[in-house]
C-alpha cells in the first residue's frame, strides 16, 4: 500500500508541472520577470530527491550513502509503518524507533531496555507476536521470518502468555462457555504450546527469559486447560534453555511446574555457563523438585533463587539447606509460602551457620515456630553476611522472639528483619526494631551507603 503510494505520488506532481510547462509557457516568462518571485519558494533539488527517497524507501532504501544531514532529514520523514525487512538492519537511528514505539504503545519506559528504543521495539514486537501465537493455526514462519531481523537487538524476552492450540473438536469449542465440562474432556488431548527452541537458539544475545505458560484476561472463559504446561512443552523449553548459553536470568512463573518438570529443567540447566538468576515461583514444585534445585545450586553460578509459593516440605528444605551449606555463590534465597515446618527451618538455620555468602533469605509463611527461632538466634549471633531475614507470618511466639532478640544483640550487619504477624510480642519487636535502626545507621555511615532494601 505504501509502496504504491510512494511510487505514485511523485509521478502526478511531475506530470502536473509538465503540463503547466507546456500549457502556458508564456507564464514562465512572467515568472522570471516577476519581482515578487523568489528562489526560496522553489524547493531545492536535494529536497526533492530526499522526498523521492522517502517515498520509495521500500523499493529502494538508500540511507548509508547519503550525507549525514540528508540522512537526518530522511530518517525524520520515514513513515513508521515501513516493513521491518527494510528498516530492521538498515535504520539504527533511535529517533525513528522512538517514533515507532510511541505510536504503537502508550507506555514506553526504555530504562528496562538498556535505554535503547530499537531494542524495546523489537523485544516488544516479538513478545506481542509470541503472545498472540496460536499453535497449529498461526504460521510459524511469522516468527521465523522475524528472527534475522531482530536477532541482533533482542536481549530479553518477557512473555507472560502462551495461547494453547485451538480445539479441533467443534463440540468442545462450545464448551468454552461451560466451566466444568471441559476439564475432563481435554485431559487426554495433548495441547502443546509454541516451541521456543527454534527462536531462542537463534537469538545470540538473549540474556533474560521471562515466561508464564498461561492465558491472561480469560475472565469467564476459564479452563484449566488454558494453564496447562505439558511435559512436551517442558522438554522443548529445557532443550531451548540449554542451547542458550548467554542466558543470565530465567524466570518460569505461574506455569504449574511440578517435580518432574523441575527435574527436567534442572537437568538442562546444570553447569550452565552464565545463568545467574532462577525464578520458579508460584509453581507446584515439591520435595523432589527442591532436591533437584538443591543440586543445581552447587552446579551453576546462581546468585538469586526464587522458589516462593511452591510445595516444598521439610525434605526439600533439607536438600536446599545442604546445598546452601556448601554453596558460595548464592546471595539471595526466597522460600516464601512453602511448607518447610520447623524441621526445614532448623535445617536452614544450620546451613546458615556454615554459609558465608547468603545476604538475604525469605522464610515467610513457612509454619516455623520456636525451635527454628532458637537456631536462627544462633545464626544471628554468628553470621556476619546476612543483611535481611524475613520470618513474617510464622508462629514464632514470644519466647522465640526473646531468643531472637538475644541472638541479635551481638549482630551488627543485619538491617532487615521482618517479624510481622509472627507473634513475637510487642516488646521484643520494638527492641529488635531499635537494634535494626542502629545497624542501619551504622551501615549508612559506613563506606557503602545502601538505601533501605525493599522488603520481599
Amino acid at each position, binding site marked *: 500500500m505504501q509502496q504504491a503510494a510512494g511510487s505514485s505520488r511523485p509521478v502526478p506532481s511531475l506530470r502536473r508541472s509538465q503540463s503547466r510547462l507546456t500549457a502556458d509557457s508564456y507564464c514562465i516568462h512572467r515568472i522570471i520577470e516577476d519581482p515578487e518571485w523568489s528562489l526560496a519558494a522553489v524547493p531545492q533539488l536535494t529536497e526533492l530527491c530526499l522526498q523521492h527517497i522517502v517515498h520509495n524507501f521500500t523499493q529502494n532504501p538508500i540511507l548509508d550513502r547519503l550525507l549525514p544531514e540528508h540522512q537526518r532529514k530522511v530518517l525524520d520523514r520515514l513513515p513508521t509503518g515501513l516493513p521491518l525487512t527494510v528498516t530492521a538492519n538498515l535504520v539504527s537511528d533511535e529517533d525513528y524507533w522512538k517514533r515507532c514505539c510511541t505510536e504503537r504503545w502508550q507506555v514506553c519506559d526504555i530504562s528496562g531496555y538498556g535505554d535503547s528504543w530499537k531494542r524495546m521495539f523489537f523485544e516488544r514486537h516479538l513478545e506481542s507476536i509470541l503472545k498472540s501465537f496460536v499453535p497449529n493455526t498461526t504460521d510459524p514462519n511469522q516468527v521465523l521470518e522475524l528472527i534475522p531481523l531482530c536477532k541482533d537487538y533482542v536481549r530479553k524476552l518477557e512473555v507472560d502468555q502462551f495461547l494453547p492450540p485451538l480445539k479441533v473438536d467443534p463440540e468442545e469449542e462450545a464448551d468454552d462457555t461451560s466451566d466444568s465440562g471441559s476439564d475432563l474432556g481435554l485431559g487426554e488431548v495433548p495441547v502443546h504450546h509454541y516451541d521456543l527452541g527454534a527462536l531462542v537458539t537463534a537469538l545470540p544475545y538473549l540474556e533474560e527469559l521471562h515466561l508464564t505458560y498461561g492465558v491472561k484476561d480469560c475472565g469467564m472463559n476459564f479452563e484449566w486447560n488454558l494453564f496447562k504446561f505439558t511435559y512436551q512443552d517442558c522438554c522443548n523449553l529445557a532443550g531451548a534453555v540449554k542451547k542458550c548459553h548467554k542466558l543470565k536470568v530465567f524466570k518460569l*512463573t505461574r506455569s504449574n511446574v511440578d517435580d518432574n518438570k523441575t527435574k527436567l529443567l534442572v537437568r538442562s540447566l546444570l553447569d550452565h555457563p552464565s545463568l545467574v538468576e532462577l525464578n520458579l*515461583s*508460584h509453581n507446584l514444585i515439591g520435595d523432589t523438585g527442591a532436591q533437584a534445585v538443591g543440586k543445581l545450586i552447587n552446579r551453576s553460578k546462581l546468585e538469586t533463587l526464587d522458589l*516462593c*509459593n511452591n510445595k516444598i516440605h521439610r525434605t526439600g528444605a533439607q536438600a536446599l539447606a545442604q546445598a546452601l551449606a556448601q554453596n558460595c555463590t548464592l546471595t539471595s534465597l526466597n522460600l*516464601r*509460602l512453602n511448607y518447610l515446618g520447623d524441621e526445614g527451618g532448623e535445617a536452614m538455620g544450620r546451613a546458615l551457620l556454615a554459609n558465608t555468602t547468603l545476604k538475604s533469605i525469605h522464610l*515467610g*509463611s513457612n*509454619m516455623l515456630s520456636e525451635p527454628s527461632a532458637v537456631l536462627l538466634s544462633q545464626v544471628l549471633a554468628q553470621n556476619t553476611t546476612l543483611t535481611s531475614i524475613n520470618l*513474617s*507470618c510464622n508462629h514464632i511466639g514470644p519466647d522465640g522472639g526473646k531468643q531472637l532478640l538475644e541472638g541479635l544483640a551481638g549482630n551488627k550487619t543485619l538491617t532487615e528483619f*521482618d517479624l*510481622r*504477624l509472627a507473634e513475637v510480642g510487642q516488646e521484643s519487636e520494638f527492641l529488635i526494631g531499635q537494634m535494626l*535502626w542502629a545497624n*542501619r*545507621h551504622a551501615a*549508612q555511615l559506613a563506606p557503602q551507603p545502601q*538505601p*533501605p532494601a*525493599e*522488603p*520481599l
Partner: protein
Amino acid sequence: MGPNLNSNVRFHPNFSSPLPRQALGEDEEPKEEVEEEEEERRSHKEVEESQQRLAKLLFEGTQMVTNIQVAADSRETQRRAEEAELKQQRVKKLEDEAKFSAYEFEKIASKWALAEDMTVPQELWQLLNQQQQQCALLLEEKNKLIGELQQELKNKDEQYVQAMKKQSDDIHLLLERMEEQIRIMLKTYRHKLHHIEKAFEFERRELLDSNRKKWEEAIQAHNTKELEYLHARMRKVEEFEKQLNQLRVQDEEEYNSMKIQLENDVQNLERQLQQTKATYLLNQEKLEYNLLVLKKQDEENTIIRARQKRKINRLHSSLNNLRTKLDKQEKQFREENQSLAADCERITGQCKEVQKRMRHFAASDAEKFTEVWLMNEEEAKWLMRKALDADRIIHTQQLGLPWEQPRHWFLNNIGPLRRYKAKRMATKLAAEVLAGGTESQCPWHPCGTGKPSPSSVRAPSVSPFCLSCQGLDLGSQHLPVPSEPARILGSLGSSPGLRELLGFPWCSVQLKATGLFVTHEGQHPWGLRSGSLREKTRSAKEALQVRDSSKDGEYWEALAHIIPETTLKLWDALVAALEEY
C-alpha cells in the same frame, strides 16, 4: 496475588500525622557536603535528624504497604491450613465412606452367591428385593456424598469469588496506600526541604548578624584608635611647628652672614674668572693658530703622501710593465737570435754560392771585356786612322806640309792593358776593412748619427767570412790571420755601448765566430781540400781579380786625343781661313 503486592509502595496515612516532616533523602547528600565544611551546625543536626526520620518514615510506610502482602500471606497460610484440615477430613470421610460402602458392597456381593443356591422363587425374590434395597441405599449414600461435595464445591466457588473480591479490595487498598505514601512522602520531603532551607537561612542570617556585629565592633575600635592617633599627630605637628620656627630664625641669620661672605667670595672669584678668561682667550687664539698650521701641514703631508703613493704605484706599474716588456723582449731577442743564426747559416751558404758564381762571371766578364775591348779598340783605331788620314790629307794637300806619322805606345796596343797591381796582402786588406769598421764604431745604433756606407754596415758580419775565404785562399801560410778577427771581435765586444746594443745575440755570434775560427785554426779539412783545387786556376783568377783599370781611362783618353790640340787649333784656323777664303 502475592507478586502483585510486591510492588514498591511506601506510605500509610496513619503514620503521616504523628511523624515530623523531615528533609528529602536526595537532598541530604548535598547538604551533608555543605555540613562537612562547618561541622556541628544546627542545620547539620537538622539534616541528620531529618534523614533518620525520613528513613524511619520510609521504612514504616513500606511496612504499612507490605502489611497488606503479609496479611494476605498470613491469610493464605491460614487458608491452606484450614484447607489441609478440611481436605484431611474430607479424605477421611471419603475413605470411611469408601470402606463402609465397600463393606456394604461386599455384603451385597456375597449375597449373590447365596442367590445361586436359592431355588425357591419367593426366597430369591425376597433376596433380590433386599439386594435392590441395599444397592439403593448404597447409591443414595453415594449420591448424598456427591451432593455434599458438590455443595462444598459451590461453597468453594463462592469463597473463591469472595477471595477474589477481597484481593481486589486489597489491591485497591494497596494502590491507595501507595498513592497516599507517595503523596505524603512528597509532601514531607517538600516540607522538610523547606524546613532545612529555613534552618540554613536562619543560620545564614545569624552568621551574617554575628559577622556584622563583629564588623561594627571592629569598625568602632578602629575609629577610636584613629581619633587617638589623630590627636597625637596634632600635638606632634604643633611641636614640630615651633621647632621649625626656631630653626628658621637661626637659619636666616646664618644664611645672611653666609650670604655676605659668599658674595665677597663671588666677587673675588669673578675677578679671577675674568683674568682666567682673558688668558683663556689668548691661549685659545694661539692654539687655534697652531691648530690651523698643523692642519695645513697635515693636509700638505697627506697630499704629498698621496702623491708619493701614486708615484710609487705608477712606478710599480711601470716596473711591472718594464719587467713584462723585458721578458717579452728577451723572448723576442732569443727568437730573433735563433732566426738570425738560421739566417746566418743560410746566408753563409748563399755567400759561397755567390762567390762561386762570381768567379764564373768574372771569368766570362774578362773574356767579354777583352772582346769588347778589342772591338772598341778596333773601332777606335779605325776612327783614329781616319782622323790621321784626314790630318795627313789636310797636311799634305791643303797645307802642303809634310805629315808625319805620330808614334804612340798605344797605337800598337791590341787587347786590354796588361798591367797588374801588386798582389795585395790579405792581412792588409783585412786591416783596411777593420780599420774602416772601427772608424764607424756604432753602425747599428738605433739613433745612429748617420747612415753607414753599405760596405761598412756589412763589414762585421761579412768580414769574418771574407777573411775566412781569403784565409782559405792563402792556405796555411797565414795561420795567425784567423786569430785576428777573433781578437777584433773581442775588442768589439769589449766596447760596452756596442755590447749593450748587441746583447746576447752578439755574444752567441761572437762565440760562433770564434768557434768557426778555432776549427779553421785546427784541422782545416775543408780549407786544405779547396786549396788544392784552387791551385790550378790560380793564374787566371789572379789576372781577373787583380786587373787594374786605372790606366784604361788614360788609354782611351790617349786614343781620343790622338789629334793634338795644336792640330785642332790648326784645323780651326784652317776652317776659318777657308771660310774667309
